[in-house]
């Protein structure tokens, strides 16, 4: 099948079938990652710029590694190095980059909509690595890959996404992706962090958190940022952990343990009890490996146009 998208700007633009193509290729790369030494040349000679206007370690390193494993040359461009600090406008910075004649650009920015904006005038492939509160498509894809590899049948699956839905691009992208594959999505957390209008994501809001967990097969916890407390969305870390954090291994009535996921980095003892992070039903560390694999799949698919590789 010919891949029709030049960019990966959001999960919203992909069909269920397109998501499955990326998951299949991601799955192959996930298997391949187990071998050493690892070196592929499929994208050798292609140049990738990692353009991060917002602090990130895991996503940036993940894209860098994904590119290098495929043989790409990778240039990292972070906010501190940026001419924006010298007064250059964002548009001029990006237009300058455009003259560098690279092949692909991975961008993270704190403003929702920036990837779509620059895709309108930059001549190369744009991959959204997180824009404000809107989308984080590779995170959603890696989450879906992690679930699929764990044996989850999306058509008979309910994921409870718990925590700061309001500010979370992860919650948006993941819930959109899950719905496209046939999963049920429920949201829970402090009502201050569940936005009005959430119906657009086609998930159900379930209170309290215990009930949301009871109805779910997968418990997906979102990272809580300290500044949300300072902004008055909830009163204290202690209170958050008491009522909205995961404190014990979630279990089905028939005794099956539910899976635990988290996009990282984890605040141990806040959204999840420390003992549960590395627990055997936690997929949190596997999510990282799947992240690398899915980013390889995305880079290859965009640049080579979906030709079978």
């Amino acid at each position, binding site marked *: 099948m010919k891949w029709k998208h030049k960019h990966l700007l959001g999960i919203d633009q992909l069909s269920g079938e397109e998501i499955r193509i990326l998951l299949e290729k991601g799955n192959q790369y996930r298997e391949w990652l187990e071998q050493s030494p690892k070196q592929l040349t499929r994208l050798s000679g292609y140049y990738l710029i990692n353009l991060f206007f917002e602090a990130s370690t895991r996503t940036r390193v993940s894209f860098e590694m994904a590119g290098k494993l495929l043989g790409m040359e990778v240039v990292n461009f972070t906010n501190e190095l940026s001419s924006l600090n010298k007064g250059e406008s964002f548009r001029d910075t990006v237009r300058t980059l455009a003259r560098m004649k690279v092949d692909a650009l991975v961008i993270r920015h704190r403003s929702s909509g920036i990837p779509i904006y620059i895709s309108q005038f930059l001549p190369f492939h744009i991959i959204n690595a997180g824009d404000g509160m809107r989308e984080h498509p590779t995170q959603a894809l890696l989450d879906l890959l992690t679930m699929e590899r764990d044996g989850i049948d999306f058509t008979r699956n309910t994921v409870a996404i718990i925590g700061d839905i309001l500010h979370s691009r992860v919650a948006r992208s993941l819930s959109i992706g899950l719905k496209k594959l046939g999963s049920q999505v429920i949201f829970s957390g402090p*009502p*201050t962090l569940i936005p009005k209008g959430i119906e657009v994501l086609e998930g159900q809001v379930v*209170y309290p958190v215990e009930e949301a967990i009871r109805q779910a097969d997968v418990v997906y916890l979102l990272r809580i940022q300290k500044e949300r407390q300072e902004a*008055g969305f*909830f*009163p204290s870390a*202690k209170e958050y952990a008491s009522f909205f954090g995961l404190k014990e291994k979630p279990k089905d009535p028939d005794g099956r343990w539910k899976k635990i996921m988290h996009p990282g980095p984890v605040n141990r003892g806040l959204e999840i009890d420390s003992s549960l992070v590395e627990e055997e039903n936690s997929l949190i560390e596997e999510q990282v490996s799947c992240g690398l694999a899915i980013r390889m799949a995305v880079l290859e698919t965009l640049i080579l146009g979906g030709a079978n590789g």
Partner: protein
Amino acid sequence: MNKVLIKNGTLILPQSNRTIEADVLIDDGVIVQIEPGINDGKAERINASGYLVGPGLINLHVHFREPGEEKKEDLFSGSRAAVKGGFTSVLCMPNTRPPIDSPLLISCFLSRAREVGLVNVFSAAAISLGLEGKAMTDVGLLKNAGAKALSDDGKCVKDSRLLYRLMTYSRYFHIPIILHEEDIDIAGEGQVNEGSVAVKLGYRSLPKAAEDSMIARDLVLAQSTGATVHFTHLSTALSVKLIEWFQNQGAKVAADVTPHHLLLDDQSIIQYGSRAKVKPPLRDQTDIVALKEGIQRGVIRILASDHAPHANEDKEGDFNEAAFGISNLEIAVPLYVKALIEDEIINWLDFWKLLSFNPAQFLGLTKKGSLETGMDADITILDPDTHHEVKVNEFVSKGKNCPFDGWQLKGWPVATIVNGKIMMRHS
């Protein structure tokens, strides 16, 4: 003896909107039988012939001043005043020193109240840490520790964002919010109602707009967030209209009113001086009429007395320096009778709804507020007919700050039964 038998009373059953002639048998703190002609040789008998017998009265707004201001009142003196006044349960406001703003403090407070053990003492917890109006308290942890409501009473929550977030957040825990409304920028150093009395006496004024504007803001917030919001000590005609309008839009909002706001207007300041100095201030006759209509129309659903005891030295001397507040817990019932029953604004069934059934529902007290078998044996017995004079120097409350001294009132409580124990009984 664990059993109590109340004979020949007129029973007020607010839960089923009925009045019946029957006996009530209490065993081990629970109402076990209600029917005519009960006999039980082992039970202590109370002859309630000619009296009204109803579920224990609940005062949604009292200040027992503990911890921190025990010279004004403490849990013991306040509880005694409650029992004497016919109340079986009270909700204490958290503006103590320190304020009740942490789970530890509310646990300590409630455990102290249980030690005293005269009356069911419940507590609201602060909305904001230190009542400073900045950061939300641990609402869920406070509820688990026993808080029945949230309030920064005595202070108005000025920060709209804090209140908006709190109203949204508190829904998760099903805990109601009680608001004292007063825009402090408008109220400033005001002492009495804005109008002729303030002009005549030369006191700075507390405009109605200070109260109404905040109520209007918070009605919008309540409507938008779906929170359960209760406006306490309502005093103006406009606020009644505003609340009714939002009730009709489906907002979960209601209000209470004190006896002094129903009985006194701002002219009383001329006669009573600082004893009638209170927040919100005593208003006009038109407001009194509107408040009474608000009760009839279901806008005001609870009668709560805002018992605010002060030491004499807090009230004497300079009017402008005198504390705000009226001590009224032991005469609140006959005051309400004078304001509402004697004027035929409401009947006795309504009276018990406003003072027992509705506050029990509001606080989520499922075993209180109804007179029926299986409920907690909290019972108040009233003599509807006999007049007595108010003698403030006989108050058991430490607070003698009360303008009603010498008033002839009827509708006094004659027995108060708390959890099956007779805590007060007139021979």
